[in-house]
């Protein structure tokens, strides 16, 4: 495992990379809400949403591998949960289905729920992944602040994100140091070492926080993470992109009813 942890963001010069973070945030968050309004019967509307999301991803000029590198993390548990849904759904008027002719009957309502969950989660991960691949983390936090998130909340998010990497690297160092001294978790009681690492990490995090605050005070700060988010206006291209995207989503959601 590398000690140099990576952000999801991938350097690039695509039209999406150059777009304002606010535009991308609004567009990316609008799609999951739009698909919530679409019934499963209107499968063409889901196909159209997938087409939209794929166009956006293609415009990002990122590689599928970059997306899959992290997309599997939320998708795998969601897919597993979706596969079990038909077996726990109650039979209702919609009837039941003989599963692949095996004689096992599952509720049609459960299969519908599975398909909905698969479609909605895949779409959401696809658009949010495209956002993350084309937008630096601090631009996302700055974008949230410019969209009205209280500045202190945006600053806390940005600082937490930064420290996540510091603590993750610290954890990796501790785990390596532990393993270098022969630790192999072969037995249940070996797990207690994980608790000790977590405890040590908590103490280190506390000490790190104290030192960080001193560093802020030393540079005439107030002791809070007073990060600066520049104000800037959206370009005509951003407004246009937002209008096209949101217009298409509203039209699809409306037609699907």
């Amino acid at each position, binding site marked *: 495992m590398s000690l140099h942890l990576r952000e999801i963001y991938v350097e690039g010069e695509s039209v999406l990379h150059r777009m304002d973070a606010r535009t991308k945030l609004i567009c990316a968050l609008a799609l999951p809400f739009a698909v919530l309004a679409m019934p499963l019967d209107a499968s063409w509307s889901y196909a159209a949403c997938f087409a939209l999301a794929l166009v956006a991803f293609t415009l990002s000029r990122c590689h599928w591998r970059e997306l899959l590198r992290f997309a599997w993390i939320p998708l795998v548990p969601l897919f597993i949960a979706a596969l079990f849904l038909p077996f726990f759904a109650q039979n209702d008027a919609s009837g039941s289905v003989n599963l692949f002719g095996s004689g096992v009957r599952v509720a049609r309502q459960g299969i519908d729920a599975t398909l909905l969950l698969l479609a909605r989660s895949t779409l959401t991960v696809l658009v949010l992944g495209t956002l993350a691949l084309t937008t630096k*983390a*601090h631009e996302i936090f700055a974008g949230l602040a410019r969209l009205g998130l209280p500045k202190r909340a945006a600053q806390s998010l940005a600082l937490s994100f*930064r420290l996540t990497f*510091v603590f993750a690297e610290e954890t990796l160092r501790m785990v390596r140091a532990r393993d270098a001294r022969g630790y192999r978790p072969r037995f249940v009681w070996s797990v207690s070492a994980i608790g000790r690492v977590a405890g040590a990490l908590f103490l280190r995090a506390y000490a*790190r926080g104290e030192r*960080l605050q001193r560093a802020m*005070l*030393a540079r005439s700060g107030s002791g809070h*993470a007073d*990060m600066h988010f520049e104000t800037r206006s959206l370009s005509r291209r951003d407004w246009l992109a937002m209008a096209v995207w949101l217009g298409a989503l509203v039209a699809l959601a409306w037609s699907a009813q």
Partner: protein
Amino acid sequence: MSDESVAAPVPVPVLEARNLHYVYQHEHAPGAGKHLHAAMDGVSFALAAGERVALLGANGAGKSTLLLSLLGLLKRVDGEVLIAGELLRRKNARRLRAKLGLLFQDPDDQLFNPTVFDDVAFGPRNLGVDGDELQSRVRRALADAGVSELAERSPMRLSVGQKKRVALAGVLAMQPDVLALDEPDAALDPRGRRELIATLGALSPAMLVVTHDLAFASALCERALVMDQGKLVFDGEMRALMSDEAKLLQHGLA
């Protein structure tokens, strides 16, 4: 001071510590009572403008405690600190800290902004500097620290040496009269050390440099302060200290 002193008279102190005392309290076991440890015991010294002084001592001698005290970052410190002749108090601490730039030992303690530019601009912004002056201060500090090309990078994607230089730029952007550097050479390879010596040697502010590396201290500083068990036990020329092997051994420096 317990040893002989050869300190030259200090004409205009940009930094002065007068009789600083600080005690850490430890409780080794519940009910065992408190153990008191004097991290600083009557420390006094002064720095003239542009003077470069090495602060030496074994681990636990009180060097880092002294640096934090000079900025008023520790509570319950007895004694007085004067920065540019002005007594450091709670109400003027924020303003006076701009005159004394502290570089922390671990740059990850100091770098928390999303980009290098924002991190270097953090201090000046706290002083109300903005617009063109902010841009020019940050660009100059980055250039002085030799990291102009990193301005738009994220601090989390830098090497240790780059992080150290960016942290130094963050301190330089405050345009301090004095730099207090806590082991700036720690974790640097020989080339990184040479480059750091060249960078620091070209800077004009007075410096108080904490280090365990006598070669690094000799290359950069003409005067040395040695701390041992919270006391200042030597204040004199770096050359005189280097030639006194008995003293180096006595205070855990060699």
